[in-house]
C-alpha cells in the first residue's frame, strides 16, 4: 500500500482538474443553440437523476424517504425557501422514523 497522503494527492489532483478545466477553458459565451440548450437543461436533469430514487435509499426506511420527498416537493411548489424545504424534509423523515417505521 502506498502512503495515504500520496493517494490523497492523486485523487485531489484528478478531481480538481475535472472541476476546473471547463471553467477555465470555456471563457466566452457558447453560440450554438443546441449546446446552450443542453447546458440549460443539464442542471435540472442531473439533479433529478441524483435525487430519485437515492432519497429513498438515504433513509432507514423507503417510506420515510418518500415522506421527505413528498413534503419537499409540496413546499418547493408553494415557493418556500431552500432552507425551509430542506429542514422540513429532515424533520419529517426523523418524525416518521421515530413514530411510524
Amino acid at each position, binding site marked *: *500500500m502506498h502512503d*495515504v*497522503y*500520496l*493517494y*490523497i*494527492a*492523486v*485523487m*485531489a489532483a*484528478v*478531481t*480538481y482538474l*475535472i*472541476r*476546473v478545466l*471547463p*471553467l*477555465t*477553458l*470555456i*471563457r*466566452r459565451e457558447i453560440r450554438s*443553440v443546441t449546446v*446552450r*440548450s*443542453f447546458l*440549460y*437543461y*443539464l*442542471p*435540472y*436533469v*442531473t*439533479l*433529478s*437523476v*441524483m*435525487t*430519485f*430514487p437515492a432519497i429513498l435509499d*438515504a*433513509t*432507514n426506511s423507503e417510506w*420515510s424517504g418518500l415522506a*421527505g420527498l413528498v413534503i*419537499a*416537493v409540496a413546499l*418547493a*411548489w408553494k415557493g*418556500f425557501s*431552500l*432552507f425551509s*424545504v*430542506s429542514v422540513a*424534509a*429532515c424533520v419529517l*423523515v*426523523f418524525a416518521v*422514523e421515530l413514530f411510524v417505521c
Partner: protein
Amino acid sequence: MEQTRGFLDGMRDGIPIALGYFAVSFTLGIACRNIGMSAAQATVMSLTNLTSAGEFAALGIMAAGSSLWEMALSQLVINLRYMLMSCSLSQKMAPDTPLFHRLLVGYGVTDEIFGISVNVPGRLDPRYTYGAVCVAAPSWALGTCLGVVLGNVLPMRLVAALSVALYGMFIAIIVPPARRDRLLGLLILLSMAASWLFARLPIFESISGGMKVIILTVLISGAAAVLFPVHGEAAKAAKTAKDAEGAKSVKDGKDAAEAEDTHA
C-alpha cells in the same frame, strides 16, 4: 431591482448543504476509521477533495492497496459529472470573470454547490459560491474528522434524517422552475423515472453510480436540446434584459417572463 446574490446569500444557502454534508461526512469518517486512517488523513482528504462518492470509493482502493493509476482512473470516472457541471457554470459566469475566480470556483463544484450556484438569477457572482463553500466545506471536513474520532456515537436515525437535507435542497432547486415551465416539469419526471429504472433493473447493475448519472444526464439533456431547443437568449439573458428595462423587475413577473422566453 433584484441585487445579484453575494457572499452572505451564499452562506445562507450553504447552511442546508452544511447540515447534509455533516451527516454524510460523519458516516464517511466512520468508514475512514474502519480502514485505519487517522483523523488528520481523513480531514485532509475531505478538505482537498470535497466529494462524497469519490472519497467513499477511494477508501476501498486504499484498503486494497491498489495502484495510483487505479486511484486516478476511479476518481476520473466517478467525478466526471463535475465536468458537465463546470461546463454549465462556465456559461453562468460573466465571460470577463478573471482566471483566479474561475480557479477558486472550480474547487467548489460539488453536486450541491453547483445546484445552488446555477440557480441564482442572472449571472453568477463568484462571491456567492465562496459564501456557500465557506459554510459547507468546513462542515464536510469537521464531519469527517468527528466520524473518525468518535465513531458510532450519533444515532443512525439522526444521521439518516440529516442526510435528506441534500435531497430536499435539490428538490427546492428543480421544482419551482417546473411550476412555470411544464416541459421542464415533464423532463424532471422523466429523468427521475429513468434514474429509478437504472437503479432498480438488474441489467444496469454493473454500471457505477457516477456513470449512471453521466449517461442519463447526457442522453436526456441532449435529447431535450435537440427536440426542444431553447431559442432566444434564454433564462439568464432574459433576466439581464429585464433588469436593464427596470420597469417590471418584480420577481414573479420576471420568472414568468423567463419561462415564456425559454420556449419561444
